[in-house]
Every structure is written in C-alpha cells, then in structure tokens.
C-alpha cells in the first residue's frame, strides 16, 4: 500500500486549436494521500476540468509525470489506461451519466463487466454497493424512474463497485437542488469516513467547503493549496 495515492509533478497539457497553442495546464505539482478529501476549485476555464481529465486517466499530459498508486500512468497505452480507469478510478459526473436503458443494478455492474467478473460476482458486488448508498430497494428501477439524488447515488455506487483508489467527482451536485446536494455531500462524507480517498472538482465554494483540503486552480496553475479551516477546526 502506498500512502501517497496521487503524485503529480510538473504536469502540463497543451492543446492546439486552429493553429494556436493553448496551455490549459502548466507545471502543476500535487500530492494526495490515502483517505484525503480534496476539493479542486476554480472558475470555468481555469484548467480544473483538464486536471480532472488527467487525474481520471481520460487524457494524457503533454509534459510531466503522474504516479497513481505507485504506477506511472502518463505514458500508458489506451488499453492500459482503460484498465487503470476501471480499477483505480471511480467517476461521478455532474449529469450522472447512467445508461438510460439499463436498471440501476445493471449500471452498477458495468465496471465489473469490463473487469471480467463473473455474473454472480457482479450481482453480489453491485447489490452491496447499491445497499451501501441506501438504494437496496431500488435496484431494478431504471434511471428515469429515480429522482436526481437517487440517480447520483446509483452513479456513486457504480464508482465504488471496483473499490477504486480514488473517487473522482466532477461537480457532483451541479444538477441537484440544495437539499439533495446536502444529501449527496453527506454520502461523500460517509465514504471518506470509511477510508475512501475523495477528489471533488467544483466551482462552488459551498460544495468545496465539505472537503478537508482545497486546491484552487487559476489560469492553469495552482493558486493555493490549503487545509479547510472550518473542517479542520471541527
């Protein structure tokens, strides 16, 4: 076990758009330890989405190194990255990104399908993950039969089902009302309390306030990286 889950050094990402070079991210260095609860904050265009895509292994950096759980992942092939995403990262998206045609259970089983788990194993683990987020009685419902909060919980169960090193949530409350947002943030809090490493990407200070450490990104650089005083005090 590595105590440091994420180690990023001098990470950079360039895009070429209509012949122009855009540095979405410059020389970002960051370490996240096991069981940390980190919020990455910044206004739109700050580069926080780019950082999230890199941390989530959906994208590869133009420069720098990214060690995830002791493995250098910045130069991996597509297939190797797919495996890393499957095993090490649990995504939670703003728009839930559930498969509309599939039941909650099937949605949660999906990462296990790509992990190559057997049918009974998938069922067992997906059921347990859904129970963990309090949806044990809604497993056979389809997303359109669930409320926004419930959908996001299905997505969280899906993110957890392969026991990833990090839970990576991109504006997880962006499509939810304030009551439901609180409810979802409580789920993240519980997961963190159970030992889960949580990385939250958001532009809302009220959401970032739930995290124990807040990293602020601006113009592709880290502007500040501080413990959250309100939580630290609590």
């Amino acid at each position: 076990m590595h105590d440091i889950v994420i180690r990023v050094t001098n990470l950079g990402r360039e895009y070429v758009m209509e012949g122009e070079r855009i540095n979405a991210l410059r020389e970002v260095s960051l370490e996240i330890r096991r069981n940390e609860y980190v919020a990455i904050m910044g206004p739109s265009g700050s580069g926080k989405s780019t950082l999230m895509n890199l941390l989530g292994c959906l994208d590869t950096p133009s420069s720098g190194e990214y060690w995830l759980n002791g493995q250098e992942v910045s130069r991996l092939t597509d297939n190797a990255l797919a495996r890393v995403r499957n095993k090490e990262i649990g995504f939670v998206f703003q728009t839930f990104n559930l498969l509309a045609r599939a039941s909650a259970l099937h949605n949660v089983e999906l990462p296990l399908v790509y992990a190559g788990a057997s049918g009974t194993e998938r069922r067992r683990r997906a059921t347990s993950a859904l129970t963990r987020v309090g949806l044990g009685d809604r497993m056979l419902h389809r997303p359109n039969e669930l409320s926004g909060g419930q959908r996001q919980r299905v997505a969280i169960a899906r993110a957890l089902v392969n026991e990833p090193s990090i839970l990576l949530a991109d504006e997880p409350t962006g499509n939810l009302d304030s009551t439901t947002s609180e409810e979802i943030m409580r789920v993240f809090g519980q997961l963190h309390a159970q030992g889960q490493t949580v990385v939250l990407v958001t532009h809302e200070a009220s959401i970032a306030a739930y995290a124990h450490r807040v990293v602020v990104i601006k113009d592709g650089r880290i502007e500040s990286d501080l413990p959250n005083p309100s939580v630290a005090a609590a």
Partner: protein
Amino acid sequence: MRLIEAVRMALNAIRVQKLKSFFSLIGVLIGVTFLIAVVSIVQGMNVYMRDRFANAIIGFNTFNLRRQPNIITGNVTDDMWRNWQRRPRISYADADYVEEHITFPATIARFCEDRVEVWHGGKVAKDIDLVGTEPTYFDIKRYVIRLGRAFTPQEVTTGSTVVVLGDIVADKLFEGQDPVGKVVTIGGLPYKVIGVVEKQGTLFGLSMDKFAIMPYKAPGRRLICPINILDQVSIRPNNPDSIHIAMAEVEGIMRIRRQLKPKQESNFALETAEGALEGWAKISKILMTALPLLVGISLVVGGIVIMNIMLMAVTERTREIGIRKALGARRADILSQFIVESATLSTLGAALGIATGIGLAFLVKALTPLPASVAVWSLVVGVAVGLGVGMVAGVYPAYRASKLDPITALRAE
C-alpha cells in the same frame, strides 16, 4: 468482455428500438426468405421430379423403346416433329426381335395406350387411359393390386377381355361396391373387372389413377393402337447398374433390325427417367446459379442498411460510449460490442427470413401443385449469411465507435 454479455446488451438495444431494428434488418430478411423459399421449392421439385414424375411415368431403373420421346423437355421444332412422324412405329415383331436378342436378363412389358370412356350400368368414366400391356407392366410400374388380381400371360396370349381398373375409375363406376367380377363396357365390348390398383395419388395436381389396364392382345387394342403396333416397349434390366449398357445394346439390336447405316440416325427413341429429368435439371441449374446473385444483391443492400443504422447508433450513443470508456471499456470491448450488436441484428433478420421463407415455401406448396421440402443446408447457409453480413456491416461503425475520444464522447449530447 465475454460474448454472452455482448449478445445480451445487443438484444437489449434491439428490444428498446423494435421498429427501427425491424426495418434495418428487412433487407437481410428478404434475402434469406428468398434463399430458403427458392431452395425449398427447387429441392422439393428435385425429389418430386425424381420420385414421382419420372418414375411414375417411366418406372424405376427402366427405359422405354419408342418411336419418339414421350416426355419432351425443351423446344421441339416442326422439322423434328415431322421427322418423328415419318419414323416407322414399333411393331410386335420389333418387340419380339429385341426380346430374343438381348443378352442381359430383364423384365419387358409391351405397351399401348389411348384415352377412352369406360361404362358401367349407365355410369361413365370419361378420359380414361386405356393401357394394353403384359403382366410385367404391374411390376415395372410398381402397381399394387388392392382388390382381385392382375391378368396372367395366358390371358394376354388368348386376348381375354379382362381389365384391371385404376382406383378412381373403380370408385366412380362402383361407388364403394366390390367391382371384382362385374362387367364394364369399353368401346362397346364387355370386359370383366378382375382387379383394382391401389391409389396412386396426384402428379402436379393431375390424378394418376384414371386408367384401365387390359392384355395388349385383347379386342380393345383396336381402340388404342393399329394392328400389330405398340407405343413402346418398357425394358427393366435386372441389374439396375447396367441400364446404360443395356440401352446401348438395345439401340444396336434395333439398328441392325432396321438396317441403319452407321451415319444414319436412329429412327427410334430410348427414354429413361434420368433423361426425362434433363430438362428439369437445366431449369434447376439456372435457378441455383441465379439464386446466389439475387440473394447476394439483397444481402448487400441489407448489409448497407445495417451499416447505416449502426453508424446512426454510434452517433446517437456517443455518450454511452464515453461512459463505457470512462468505466474501463477498452477499444476491443467497444469494437466487439457494436460488431456483436450488428451481427445479432442481422442474424435475427436471417432467423425471421428462415421462418418466412419456410412459410412461403409451404404456402406455395398448399396453393399450387408445386412441392416444397426444406433443405437443411439452406438453413445453415441462411444463419451463416446473416451472421456474416452483420459482422462485415458492423466493422466500420464499430471501428468508429472504438476510436472515439472518451472526453469528447462524454461531452456529447
């Protein structure tokens, strides 16, 4: 990802869009329907032509010596016809000569026929095939005597006025009564009914039971052939493998008898069941050659339709692909998912095509005299073709899907 999972996902995707899926597989459906239906009918015809048509008319392993062919397939020109009409007919003496000179053991039946009316007690059976022949004829035609008996060689020699009736004739004239021992009138002369032949059924919708069989030397011969003349001599060699050698021998014997020079054509015909099938063989060959072409065209069209549907599906489901990639699907997983989906769709089309094809074949069988019998190989080909078309049509859309960038795909609407 395992195949079963991929097929399950594919069936799910198809179920969600039933109507669209149905239209997309209609091309394959039509192609396979056509394949199955045509093969079934041709196959049925093959069996029918061999077992019923040729053998019912000529007899198993038998050849006929005639003035001209009886079963004509293909065009007969006026010249050919006139030439045939000029030929000498087969005489009793010809038959005796052949019988004396052949060196192989064989069953021989002299034969003459024409259409007559058969009367009994004020009832008439019209358009009855009156056959003058020998007892061996029953053997060659594989007629089973249902009631009574066949006539004997003695009755032939003495020209007895006895007759064996076809099933329909007996039914029509005697309506369930036992006809054996009763008397029918043919051409104004009384004939004693001595037997009835078992029902033969129909051939292309025509009854095969409308006949009356009498000794060829019976007085009624004047109704069917000129004096001392025969329509044909049926010869069945005891060894069925030697039929071609036997035919060559009979041809030689007849040429000698008619004193034909080597360059002269034979002025008689030797006809076999096999020969009668030649025309059909030609037709079936043309059909079977054209079939792959026709099926191929509809399958190409069907494949293009499926490919377009799959391309649309990839576009519509870009986000789904993004989600799957984010959750750890490799390129190969996405590739196989869409190929399996396309193949499942197409195989489903093929399966429906097989069902409608068989249905069509049996509809044809029920509504027309044409027979139908489903060929197992055509079912295998149908499924294989469906699978193949689907896989080929799915490759390009699946490749496009697998190449999608997960970030872009996740942002798609």
